[in-house]
């Protein structure tokens, strides 16, 4: 399986949508089917390539893989460096999966050509951001995503689209300005002395040139940009407007992929480039994250617009992701990375479903909807599965990430985890209540006799539902690829700071398990021999606990 080792798969993944966008731009407007097919084919090709990437990706290797490096603006130390590790891998796959769904799923009522072109540019921007190992290149991609998103909201959105798109654009640009300054300061300060100027984040992380207050300020400048994107309380108010006014596909991509640029950025740049500052300022970010979890959930509860409710639920969910990031444990960080993917799937699916309801009823007002389960049992069933995933029901994807985040946070920041766990109760409250009002009851008025899901809608939802169940039941293949990179990042932080991950989070647990398996094997052996001496069990378990320092057993 797979591609030749010299095939530049990452560059191809970024280039295909760009080229396709150019092709679409050249096609005549009078051929909507052709335009749609080109867009769909390109995004499907990218999707397939990302899956191939995930299959070829070597699990257990913590560093960057498939790195392709080309000098670009040599004088400024700017290069075209793309690479993927366990932290970015599944975000790339997520983008690869969600874009064709967003392109194919919701109907577009006007100007298909520009729409498809912008979506393809957006895809290139998102994936490029996740793959860039050069700070400048990242910034470029990061900013590029703004433009197509702005036009998609402003051009194909609902009533208040202009206000929402401008708010979205200015908010994000405001954050980016800080990052630009921080980025330049970092590069400048890292180039002092004989070291050449570079934007290569691997090199910058290695040098660790900034420290103390300087590092903290630059870190905050980066975080400002990412916090807006996440969005973290209190810079989240662009999100409900943008989500609500965006067309369905826009909301799907915005929630599914674009928000992850923020959380990914914090992990990739915040933690990697400024380990000490990140550790120092963790309490601040943990607190904002917890506030976001509770606040987002409370505000979601009283929303009257179904789409806005889902939007606020994102504020809460993204709070969990930030929480896990600043827990500085394997579980917290792995959970966060996994949850970025999970949230993309569940919330993407929720927005698609809300879009389907809107297509039929032309309203998103919860008060105007009722009894939809009566005439649309299948749509209701799919909604239920997705809702339960979003609530964090074990067995579905959302739980795995959320639980890892909370348990990983608990071992280092107990009380933050305790408060955040309250968010789990609230999630059930606002979603089930919304479900009850929209789907339960006896339908009246225009809610009677609506058609259930069409073939196209089923096609779009099927992969999402399959992934939601699969990642809940068997997340191991994904976690096995995430974990080594997360481990490496935590090691990096530990090597640059006084911070040490509690042994229980690092590897003690595994040793306990290994010791236990040993005991079980011994017991079985004894049983086979006909001896039975249960008394020795305690000694064996004690030894297991004591092996904590000896590192990983199974790698």
């Amino acid at each position, binding site marked *: 399986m797979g591609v030749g080792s010299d095939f530049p798969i990452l560059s191809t993944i970024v280039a295909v949508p760009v080229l396709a966008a150019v092709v679409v731009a050249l096609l005549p407007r009078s051929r909507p089917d052709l335009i749609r097919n080109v867009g769909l084919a390109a995004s499907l090709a990218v999707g397939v390539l990302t899956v191939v990437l995930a299959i070829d990706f070597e699990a257990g290797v913590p560093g960057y893989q498939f790195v392709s490096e080309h000098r670009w603006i040599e004088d400024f130390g700017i290069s075209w460096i793309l690479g993927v590790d366990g932290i970015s891998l599944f975000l790339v796959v997520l983008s690869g999966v969600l874009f064709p769904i967003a392109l194919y799923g919701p109907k577009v009522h006007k100007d298909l050509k520009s729409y498809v072109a912008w979506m393809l540019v957006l895809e290139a921007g998102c994936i490029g951001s996740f793959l860039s190992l050069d700070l400048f290149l990242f910034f470029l991609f990061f900013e590029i995503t703004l433009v197509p998103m702005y036009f998609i909201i402003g051009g194909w959105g609902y009533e208040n689209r202009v206000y929402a798109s401008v708010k979205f654009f*200015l908010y994000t640009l405001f954050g980016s300005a800080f990052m*630009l300054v921080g980025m330049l300061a970092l590069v*400048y300060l890292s180039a002092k002395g004989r070291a050449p100027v570079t934007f290569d984040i691997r090199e910058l992380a290695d040098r660790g040139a900034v420290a103390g207050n300087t590092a903290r300020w630059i870190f905050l400048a980066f975080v400002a940009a990412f916090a807006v994107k996440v969005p973290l309380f209190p810079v989240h108010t662009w999100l409900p407007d943008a989500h609500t006014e965006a067309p369905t596909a826009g909301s799907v991509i915005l929630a599914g992929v674009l928000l992850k640029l923020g959380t990914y950025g914090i992990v990739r740049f915040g933690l990697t480039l400024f380990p000490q500052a990140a550790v120092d300022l963790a309490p601040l970010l943990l607190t904002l994250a917890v506030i976001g979890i509770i606040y987002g959930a409370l505000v979601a509860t009283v929303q009257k617009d179904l789409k806005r409710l889902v939007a606020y639920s994102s504020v809460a969910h993204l709070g969990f992701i930030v929480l896990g990031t600043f827990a500085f444990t394997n579980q917290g960080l792995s959970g966060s990375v996994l949850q970025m993917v999970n949230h993309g799937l569940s919330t993407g699916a929720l927005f698609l479903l809300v879009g389907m309801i809107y297509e039929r009823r032309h309203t998103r007002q919860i008060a105007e909807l009722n009894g939809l389960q009566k005439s649309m049992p299948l749509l209701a069933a799919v909604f239920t599965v997705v809702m339960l995933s979003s609530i964090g029901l074990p067995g579905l994807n959302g739980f795995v990430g959320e639980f890892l985040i909370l348990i990983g946070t608990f071992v280092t920041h107990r009380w933050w985890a*305790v408060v955040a766990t309250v968010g789990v109760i609230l999630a059930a409250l606002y979603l089930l209540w919304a479900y009850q009002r929209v789907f339960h009851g006896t339908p009246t008025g225009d809610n009677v006799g609506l058609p259930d899901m069409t073939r196209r809608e089923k096609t779009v939802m099927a992969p999402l539902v399959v992934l939601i169940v699969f990642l809940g039941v068997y997340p191991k293949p994904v976690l096995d690829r995430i*974990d080594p990179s997360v481990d490496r990042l935590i090691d990096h932080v530990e090597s640059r700071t006084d911070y040490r991950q509690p042994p229980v989070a690092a590897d003690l647990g595994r040793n306990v398990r290994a010791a236990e398996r040993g005991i079980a094997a011994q017991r079985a052996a004894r049983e086979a021999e006909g001896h*039975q001496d249960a008394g020795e069990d305690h000694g064996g378990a004690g030894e297991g606990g004591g092996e904590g320092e000896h590192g990983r057993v199974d790698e």
Partner: protein
Amino acid sequence: MLDVAYLIPALPLAGFVVLVCLGRRAGDPGAGWVATSAIGLAFLSSFIAYVQLLGKDGEARAVVKPIFTWIRAGGFEVEAGLLVDQLSLTMALFVTGVGTLIHLYSIGYMKGDERFPRFFVYLNLFAFSMLVLVLGDSFLLTFLGWEGVGACSYLLVSFWFERNSAASAGKKAFVVNRVGDFGFMLAMFLVFATFGTLDYQGVLSRVDVLTATTATAIALLLFVGACGKSAQLPLFVWLPDAMEGPTPVSALIHAATMVTAGVYLMARVSPILALSEEALTVIAVVGALTAFFAATVACAQNDIKRVLAYSTVSQLGYMFLAVGSGAYVAAVFHMVTHAFFKALLFLGAGSVIHGLHDQQDMKHMGALRRLMPVTAVTFIIGWLAIAGVPPFAGFWSKDDILLAAYDKSPLLWGVGVVTALLTAYYMSRQVFLVFYGGERWRKAPTAGAHAGGGGAAHDAKHADDAGTGGHGAHGDAPHEGPWVMTLPLVVLASLAALGGLLNLPFGESARLEHWLEPVFGEALRHVEASSAHKQALAAAAGGAALVGIAIAYGIFIRGRRTTAFEPPVLQRAWGIDALYSALIEKPGHALSTFAARVVDARVIDGAVNGVASLVRAGGGQLRKVQTGYVRNYALGVAFGATVLLGLVVMRAGA
């Protein structure tokens, strides 16, 4: 060895998958038979596993059957596996056994429902989740089942979602349970932080490393979870409302199996509980108070199912009283006998509701023993069992609990005995109102006309035509159900009558005690008492039961009354729901509204818009540049950034 254990949860899962794939094609009654066979075979598998386990020595009867690695990140690893031991297998046996009977019954009860196949999809999913809960070899796997049964409970309570009351009840059940799950989750975090693992054997074999404080914390946090799932004070409020679900659901989930999960969890972690006398005392007191409280409420309910719901809350309280007294075997014993007689009572109630065309108000019943003989006889056996009349099952298990409670504290025993009296009274009241007295159903309003008021849980199966009075009680006379409904009644009645044989307190016949003892080990407290002492306590409990029955007899049979001692405060369950509404719901809603309307819309967005207009005002000079088009801003920013970049880099290069 014991590979058959895999089949126990796998069969209901397979049934679920098959039924999901078949969808509506499974049909009525086809879907019912698929689901019933799945769980019936699971019962068979449990029984084979039980026989295999009997072939081993007592100490070697705990076997872990690995399945796969579920979650792994850093030092956190959960290997999903089945823990087959005496406790989990006891649970599996009665869950699948009672479950099979209720599945069978449902084929008759749900006949003609437009969502008949879907009902059995949920039932099999429930059975699977419940079996994962009891057979899981780690806290997290139990939690998987725990939440799974919660979700199924949600789906089944709101099965007739057209009715708002059913929809609300389902949501309430899920949310209140989540409050309990909050405790369960925190307990797991604490267990992981302390032990580095979540699996039972790894934790329970090393409890000696726990400090008393941590042990108490873990025990009480798990107990919070148990209070949610097993409807104890103060989290019981969802269970009475959950009676909105179809009656077989009430029997299976809200009486026999799911609600006992909290008791199971406590029994499972008995080595941790044994380290904390404080936690045990809290559990015992909450259990006793819940038992008493719910019994008082049950005395004043008129809805046939709500009486049984509060009775379940009360009986679960007994089980926690047993746990808190260190009498885990008694707790499990009562759990099993309760599963028999309470499932029987619910199915009997369902039979009555079915026969009376969805009438649930006991004030509109009466004299049904002549028209529904099988239901009446079996219900009466259930009544004698729950009331604690010897030699029926409930007497023996309740007696074990009260004996242990006396050892813990005579005060707790006293509460238990008073509750026993109340239990006998409200159950007798129910039997006399439903099966004796006059034929009040003849002049009763139709169930449909009644469905609007009272807040009672009306099992209005035919919600669509309920309003039109399509099935009035005037038409045909009450009748017995088909054999699929009466057979389970007969089987359960035999079990309710003879269940005491599992653990008779004479000599060597205490089978359950011997069987379960290795699981609990030192955590199990043995009551050392003379047989005279034991007999005196048993006589007191039996006496209380007889007094309760006598009082009810005096009022409802001799006195021919249909109303007695039903103050509004008891009808409204001491106003606890109203209290929650006033203390949590309303302030919570106000706070959320404040956050949305004021903080978000005024404070934060106000600041954002304020800054924006400030910039606009200050930038009067730059008005020509302000074209209002974002693309121009973007160009400007890009241009500015490039200049800035050039400057910085040039300086850096210098």
